[in-house]
C-alpha cells in the first residue's frame, strides 16, 4: 500500500495523466460526471456519478464499421482501432462490480472485441465509500463499499489518500508513481482499518441496509413470473429508458445503420427493454405490454442473469434508478413487493 497527502492529489493526477488518459468524477451543473482530467479539474465530492462508469467499456453509441458506396460499388471499412491506455479514478464499489457483470456478457464466447479492447486498456482505481447515500443498497448483493474491487483500491481519509494495488496492472501503475507516493506503515494500516469501520458503520445504518435478495436468484423464474404484483408495479411505468441508461449493468444494445448519403455507418447503441420497439423483429416485439417489458427488466436483474451466471445478480445496488426514475419506481420497490411483503 502506498499513500499520498490529499493536498498533493493534483500532482498525483498529473503523474497518472502523463502516461495515459485519466478520467475522474468532476462536478457539473447536472451532478458528477466522469471527465478527462486536465490541470485544474477537481475530484468531485459527490458519492457517485449520474451516469455510471460502464460508458468507458460499453459506450452509448459505438461505430462498428463503415460501408462506403460509390455508385453501385460498396466497400466495407473496418473502423476498429486499438484503444489507448486509460485510468478510471474514483470508481465506486458498485460500479466496479458492474464491470464483472458486463464482462460475463461481453467476454463470453463469442467475445465482443470492441469491449475487450477497451477493457484491456482500462485500469480501475476504485474508491471506498464513506458517505453512502440513502438510496444505496450494494450490501444486498454482497458488495462491500468499504472494500471495493479494482486494480488499485483507494481510501481517502481527511488528509491522506491510500493506494492499494490488487492486480499486476495496478502494481505496475503504483510502481510508476512511486516517486510521488510514500510507503505505508503500521499506523497507516490502522488508519485504513478505522476508515473501513466507519464505512461499515454507516453502511449498516442505511435505510435500505436490511434489504435482502435471498429470495431471488438462479432458477426462480416460476416463483415470480406470474406474481400479480407486476401489474401494480408496472402500471405507472412510462416506458422511458432512464433506469436502463443510468444503470451500470444494463447491457442491451441495438445495431443500426445510419445512411450518411455516401455510405452507411453501422453503429450500436444502448437499447432499453422498456421500449416498445425493443428486440423488435419482423413479427413484432415479443413483449407486447409494458407489464411484460417491466417484468423483463427486473426478472433479468434478479433471476435470469443469476441463472446464467452462477447466481451473480446483475444489480449492484448503486441506487441510480431510485433517484432518477420519473415516476419513482425502482428495483427496491419491486423486490419488496414481489411475493408478498415478506421482505419488509
Amino acid at each position: 500500500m502506498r499513500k499520498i497527502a490529499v493536498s498533493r492529489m493534483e500532482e498525483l493526477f498529473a503523474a497518472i495523466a502523463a502516461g495515459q488518459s485519466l478520467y475522474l468524477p468532476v462536478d457539473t451543473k447536472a451532478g458528477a460526471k466522469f471527465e478527462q482530467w486536465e490541470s485544474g479539474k477537481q475530484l468531485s465530492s459527490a458519492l457517485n456519478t449520474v451516469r455510471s462508469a460502464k460508458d468507458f467499456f460499453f459506450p452509448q453509441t459505438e461505430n462498428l464499421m463503415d460501408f462506403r458506396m460509390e455508385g453501385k460499388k460498396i466497400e466495407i471499412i473496418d473502423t476498429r482501432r486499438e484503444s489507448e491506455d486509460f485510468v478510471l479514478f474514483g470508481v465506486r464499489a458498485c460500479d466496479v462490480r458492474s464491470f464483472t457483470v458486463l464482462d460475463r456478457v461481453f467476454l463470453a464466447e463469442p467475445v465482443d472485441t470492441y469491449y475487450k479492447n477497451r477493457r484491456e486498456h482500462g485500469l480501475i482505481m476504485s474508491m471506498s465509500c464513506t458517505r453512502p447515500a440513502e438510496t444505496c443498497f450494494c450490501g444486498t448483493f454482497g458488495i462491500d463499499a468499504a472494500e471495493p474491487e479494482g486494480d488499485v483500491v483507494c481510501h481517502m481519509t481527511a488528509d491522506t489518500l491510500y493506494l492499494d494495488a490488487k492486480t499486476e496492472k495496478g502494481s505496475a501503475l503504483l510502481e510508476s508513481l512511486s516517486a510521488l507516493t510514500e510507503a505505508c506503515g503500521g499506523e497507516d494500516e490502522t488508519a485504513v482499518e478505522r476508515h473501513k469501520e466507519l464505512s461499515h458503520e454507516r453502511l449498516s445504518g442505511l435505510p435500505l441496509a436490511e434489504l435482502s435478495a435471498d429470495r431471488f436468484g438462479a432458477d426462480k423464474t416460476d416463483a415470480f413470473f406470474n406474481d400479480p404484483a407486476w401489474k401494480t408495479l408496472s402500471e405507472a411505468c412510462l416506458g422511458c429508458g432512464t433506469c436502463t441508461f443510468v444503470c451500470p449493468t444494463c447491457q442491451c444494445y441495438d445495431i443500426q445503420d445510419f445512411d450518411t448519403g455516401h455510405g452507411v455507418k453501422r453503429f450500436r447503441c444502448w437499447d432499453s427493454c422498456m421500449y416498445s420497439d425493443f428486440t423488435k423483429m419482423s413479427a413484432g416485439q415479443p413483449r407486447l405490454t409494458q407489464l411484460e417489458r417491466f417484468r423483463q427488466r427486473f426478472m433479468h436483474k434478479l433471476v435470469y442473469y443469476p441463472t446464467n451466471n452462477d447466481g451473480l445478480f446483475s444489480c449492484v445496488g448503486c441506487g441510480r434508478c431510485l433517484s432518477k426514475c420519473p415516476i419513482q419506481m425502482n428495483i427496491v420497490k419491486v423486490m419488496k413487493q414481489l411475493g408478498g411483503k415478506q421482505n419488509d
Partner: protein
Amino acid sequence: MQVTEYKPLIVAFCCNWCSYAGADLAGNNRLSYPADVKIIRVPCSCRVNPMFILRAFQRGADGVILCGCHPGDCHYTTGNYYTRRRMALLFSMLDYLGIERERTRVEWVSAAEGAKFAATMNDFVAQVAALGENKRLEDLRCKK
C-alpha cells in the same frame, strides 16, 4: 496554388403553383443564379415539414429557403398562411438555439416573378456564402 472558392449548398423548397413556376420563368428569361441552389418541388409550401429543413442541414446544406405563393394567393387558399406561422416559430427557435438566422429564409415568389426568384437566390446564396459552412447544425457523420 489553387484556391477553391467556397460554394454553399442551398436547398430551395418551391411550391408547385407559384414559386416553382417563378423559377421556371427565371429560366425562360435566362436570369441566372448560382448553381448552388437546388430546387425541390412540393405541392404547397405548407407541405414542408420542419424535419425536412433540419435534415437538409444535417446532410450538408448550408442554407434552406422556402418559396411559396404570396399570402392570399395560395393555390390551396390557406397553405402558405400555415407555412408562415410554422416557419416564424421554427426560425425563431433556431435563432434561440444560436443557429445563424441568415441560413433560413421564406420568400413569397409568384409565378410571374421570375426576376424576383433569381434575385432572391442570388441574394440568399451571397448571404449564406458570407456565413461560410454550416457548422452548428451539421452531422459530422455525413461529411465525406
